[in-house]
Structure formats: structure tokens, C-alpha cells
């Protein structure tokens, strides 16, 4: 499949109609998508976060930069990688589980490819992690997330074979799932950290 490479997929993020057509015409195997798209894409943000954190240190406000010890940084990056892979795969699983309700195609591989496309802008914007400052990250990631949402609503009908109206409904359900998954991630992170797994907290 032509789009099963991170570079081609990145180009497609700025050509939504082409992206929709490519995905509609393809029936990728799930393992192909995971090996050639999901895993490589999920490596990028954690790697950049590791480099930025180790080289420049995290900055909060006007204080001194904070250097998390190398072991801690590696652990955070590993957890970040796992979270991203889980995010991609679980979103595709939920989407294919919902497919029947919205008249969409059911192939798991197609859903994985679509989710990879939708997440691509955020992956690209994670270059902001090289500058570990909250403000810079927000400046780049927020517009990227807006683009992700745009791709979700714009390309879903073509990519997954629904009518435009079913597409809006399904996209909204995917948004609901992603929000719930993200907030769960916040909750789990917080529980782990306050339980002692992570930087020390005085609870």
C-alpha cells in the first residue's frame, strides 16, 4: 500500500481528499499497519522528549531548568511509547467495534490506518518536545490537534465508507472515546505517581 510509510502518510495529512481516497481503496493487514506505521510513529514523540529533557532540561516558569535523572527520563519515554501504541490500537479497536452501528467497514487494518492518519499531525508537532517548555509545546500541539480533529471529521466517511451524516456521528463517538481514554491516562499517571511509581511525591 502506498501510504504505509510514515513519510507518505505525513504528506497525506495536508491532502485530505487524496488521503480519503487512498484509504478507501486499500485493505491493509492489521499487522502491516502496526509494524510500518503505528510503531514507528509512536517512537518519535518519546524519543524527542528524551532528547529535549536530557539536553535542555524541563523548564517551569522562570525557575532553573529541571533535569530528571537519565533512568527516570528513560522510564517516562518508555511509558509514553506504550501509551501512544495503546492509544492508536485501542482507538482503532473501539472504532471497528462501533462500525456496525454507523454502517462503516469493519476491517481492523483499515481502522488502524485511519487512526494513524488522524494522529499524524500531533506526531509531527511533537518536535516541540525538543524544547521542553510547556508554552512552546502548547503553541505547536494545539493547532496540530485541531488539524487532527479536522482530518477525523473530513476523512472518516471516505476512509471508512459511511455516509457524511453517519460519519459525523461516528467521528463524535471517536472523540468521546479519545477524551475518555486521555483523561484515564491522566488518572492512571496520577495514581501511579502518588503511589510511589514515578518522581517522589509527598502524599
Amino acid at each position, binding site marked *: 500500500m502506498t501510504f504505509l510509510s510514515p513519510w507518505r502518510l505525513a504528506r497525506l495529512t495536508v491532502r485530505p481528499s487524496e488521503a480519503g481516497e487512498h484509504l478507501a481503496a486499500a485493505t491493509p493487514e492489521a499487522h502491516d499497519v502496526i509494524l510500518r506505521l503505528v510503531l514507528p510513529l509512536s517512537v518519535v514523540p518519546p524519543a524527542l522528549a528524551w532528547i529535549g529533557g536530557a539536553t535542555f532540561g524541563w523548564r517551569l516558569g*522562570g525557575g532553573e531548568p529541571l533535569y530528571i535523572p537519565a533512568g527516570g527520563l528513560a522510564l517516562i519515554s518508555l511509558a509514553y511509547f506504550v501509551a501512544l501504541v495503546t492509544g492508536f490500537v485501542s482507538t482503532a479497536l473501539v472504532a471497528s467495534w462501533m462500525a456496525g452501528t454507523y454502517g462503516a467497514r469493519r476491517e481492523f487494518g483499515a481502522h488502524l490506518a485511519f487512526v494513524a492518519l488522524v494522529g499524524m499531525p500531533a506526531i509531527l508537532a511533537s518536535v516541540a518536545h525538543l524544547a521542553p517548555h510547556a508554552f512552546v509545546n502548547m503553541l505547536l500541539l494545539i493547532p496540530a490537534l485541531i488539524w487532527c480533529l479536522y482530518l477525523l471529521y473530513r476523512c472518516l466517511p471516505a476512509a471508512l465508507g459511511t455516509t457524511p451524516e453517519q460519519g459525523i456521528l461516528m467521528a463524535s463517538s471517536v472523540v468521546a472515546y479519545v477524551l475518555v481514554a486521555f483523561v484515564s491516562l491522566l488518572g492512571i499517571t496520577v495514581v501511579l505517581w502518588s503511589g510511589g511509581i514515578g518522581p517522589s511525591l*509527598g*502524599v
Partner: protein
Amino acid sequence: MNAVDLHRRLERHSGLLIFGILFVSAIGGLVQVLPSVLDDRLATPGPDVKPYGPVELTGRDIYIRESCGTCHSQQVRPLLAEVRRYGAFSRADEFAFDRPFLWGSKRTGPDLHRIGGRYSDVWHRLHLLDPRAVVPDSIMPAYPWLGERAADAEGDIQAKMRALRLLGHPYTDADIEAAPAALEGLTEVDALVAYLQGLGTSTGGDTR
């Protein structure tokens, strides 16, 4: 009659439905809230917890009027980091005379329960009249009008203390008589500073 049948009866009879809603929604309050309201241990002041004097009471009411509790909490939680940052954690017996309670639900600014005695009166006055004079990055609003108004401008301190006495605060007649004199010559910022300086200074014992 199973549950669905019971419901079908309720939905055909508005009186039963109203009663059903009231009954079901009252249970939680009866189990959780009522025992707490009747539990004297939650209302008994600690050994050295006193009702607010006229100046502190005036200051507290200014704190309420300006909604300081919107940004500042008064509740140090029993967590290691919190106790390190603010001092001893807050106990129920310290709040017996707090009407209403001012524990807050947001810390845009720091917790204030143990602020008493931490900063000088001068610091507090400067800070309240213009926060950025002492904390350049502060986003707290300035309260210049507090320095311009008399503490007893409303003239209602005796009425307030009488109302609180009705609610069980142990004020004597002498206390109430002397109240206006205590406020004479003071501005609102003086009263507020007095309130802040008294916060959390009781050491108290264990009332459990």
C-alpha cells in the same frame, strides 16, 4: 410486583411519582448529612479555639465579601508535602466558629489556614493594597478601597455578634458592648489583617 411494574404505577400517578422522587433522593442526605450535623465532635471547638473578636470578625466578613476564598483555600490536608509547605494539617475542631466554613475549593493562590503570624502586618497591608509591590509575578487583584474605608462603616458589629450568640458563639454582654470601641479608628484593611494574623494559630488538642 416487580420493579418495572412498580415504576409503571408511579408513572401513572403524579403524586406517587413526586413522593417516590422525594423519598429516594432524601435517603443519601439522611444517612450521610444528618448524622454529621448531629455529631457534636464536629462542632466542638478545640481547647484554645475562641470565637472571633469584633476586629477579626469584621475582617472575616470582608474576606467573604471580596470572595478571597475563590482563590485561597483554608484547609491543609494531612499530606507530607502539604504539611511541609503550610504547617500542621487542619482539624475539624478549629472551625467550630466558622460561619460559613471557608475551606475553599481552589488554590490559585496559596492555602491560608496557617498564615497567622507568618508575615508581618506591614507585609500584609502592602500586599493587600497592591500585591505586585511585594510579589512581582502575582496575579492577585489589588484592594485599594480597603485602605480607604472605616472598619465599622456599616455600624452592624453588635447586631452580628448578637446573631452569632443566638447560634451558640459564647459572647458576653460586655464583649458586645465593647465591640464598636474596638473598631474605632481602624480601616477595613486593618480588620482583614487582624483576621489573617489569627488564622490557624490555635494549637489545640486531640478531640477524637
